[in-house]
């Protein structure tokens, strides 16, 4: 590989803070690749992050998330705000490749210096985002974007990770989803701060709106915070601009929710939850890395697998044993593991 990407984390972060788009792009790639430099980069990014408004859009593929975001970008740009967008699409479980198609809908902003858009494949991570999405949002915050918008991959499953990243979470539904809405409403309706019925121009929209109203009342009653999630109908794509609908209302509702968060101080809890989630992820990764590093070259992993296979023990007992040795005398294990060598 001839590519020279040898900038130090310090240089990369310094450049991206100064508005260098290429440096930002390369830093984001490092995050996606879970590279060795990540911890160092994030340590430098973190103090500059956390000052943006973060909005999430979730909902099935094709429901109109990207089309809605396109309008949101325009409105926030009209207000003079800088906008970052992170759009996640599913990676193929077979090839590991991904078709990232959201950018087509953001064409109108392709030359706007105040807009930074990044597409990412989920790379096997579940929950509607990629493992590194929360880090990428932090980077976009540090870049000085006033608003960061996150689009989930839209498999229509319980893509609930978005609530740990976004302050205001918008669920996008459509009239032609039929039974999907029924399947979805259980978990995901409760987490949505705003529910949008997009494609309100389609047949059956009114009927759908009525049945949604009933469902939402139940979902809201399950919420502990007292926010009443509004239901808005929109048309995000139409041949004529005058046929677009509900975009201003969506903007206003997002603002209302943000005001509610700040006035009730609920924003502090939202931020704390996000940090808790980040901490959990980093802990999990680091502990796992630490332990696998310690086991490397000792032949222990194979011994454990063999023992479990032969019924002498089980995964739970093994992990308990490994954890108790490693976490108590971690440094010592690291020392000795280098000397043994067999595979």
């Amino acid at each position: 590989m001839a590519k020279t990407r040898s900038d130090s984390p310090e240089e990369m972060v310094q450049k991206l803070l100064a508005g260098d788009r290429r440096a930002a792009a390369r830093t984001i790639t490092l995050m996606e690749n879970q590279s060795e430099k990540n911890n160092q980069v994030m340590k430098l990014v973190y103090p500059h992050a956390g000052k943006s408004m973060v909005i999430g859009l979730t909902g099935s593929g094709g429901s109109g998330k990207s089309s809605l975001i396109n309008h949101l970008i325009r409105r926030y740009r009209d207000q003079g705000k800088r906008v970052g967008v992170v759009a996640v699409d599913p990676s193929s479980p077979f090839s590991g490749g991904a078709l990232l198609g959201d950018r087509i809908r953001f064409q109108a902003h392709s030359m706007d210096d105040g807009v930074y858009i990044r597409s990412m494949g989920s790379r096997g991570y579940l929950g509607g985002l990629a493992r590194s999405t929360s880090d990428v949002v932090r980077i976009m915050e540090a870049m000085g974007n006033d608003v960061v918008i996150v689009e989930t991959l839209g498999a229509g499953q319980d893509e609930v990770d978005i609530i740990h990243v976004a302050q205001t979470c918008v669920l996008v539904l459509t009239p032609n989803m039929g039974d999907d809405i029924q399947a979805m409403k259980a978990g995901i309706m409760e987490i949505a701060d705003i529910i949008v019925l997009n494609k309100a121009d389609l047949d059956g929209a009114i009927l759908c709106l009525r049945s949604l109203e009933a469902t939402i009342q139940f979902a809201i009653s399950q919420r502990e915070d007292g926010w009443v999630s509004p239901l808005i109908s929109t048309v995000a794509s139409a041949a004529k601009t005058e046929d677009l609908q509900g975009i201003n209302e969506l903007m206003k509702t997002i603002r209302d929710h943000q005001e509610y968060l700040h006035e009730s101080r609920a924003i502090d809890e939202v931020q704390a939850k996000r940090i808790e989630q980040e901490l959990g992820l980093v802990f999990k990764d680091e502990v796992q890395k630490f332990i696998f590093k310690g086991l490397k070259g000792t032949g222990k992993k194979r011994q454990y697998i063999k023992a479990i296979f032969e019924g002498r023990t089980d995964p739970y007992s093994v992990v308990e044993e490994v954890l108790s040795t490693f976490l108590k005398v971690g440094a010592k294990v690291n020392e000795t593991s280098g000397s043994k060598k067999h595979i």
Partner: protein
Amino acid sequence: MNRDKIKVIVSKVGLDGHDRGAKVVATLLKEAGMEVVYLGMYQTPEGVIRAAIDEDADVIGLSYLSGEHLVYTPKIVNEMKKSGLNDVLLVVGGSFPPEDVPVMKEMGVDEVFRGGSLTKSIVDYIKKNAREKG
């Protein structure tokens, strides 16, 4: 499947409305394990370059079927130079006379795939060369 994927921008510039080939190639590269940002039709050279920068692309792939390849390719090459994308691979595909292939290569295109190109040759070429430039 966490690590290092080849990232490719697939796009069309100008007013050419033939997008089938571009879609076929985008899907093909995805199936070969790459991350493909599909920009679709009617792009400007500047817009393609901006996407390549923000997405940290390794490869820019352009598709032409309406005879605009000699008009837009120099613009793309020029924009790439201006933005310092000298390590990004530039490949072109589509429908054009064979004598235009060396012309485009002279302009700075790394490889050209005319209509009927075997899909394997496209995948193999990109896999081999995506990280070798610059």
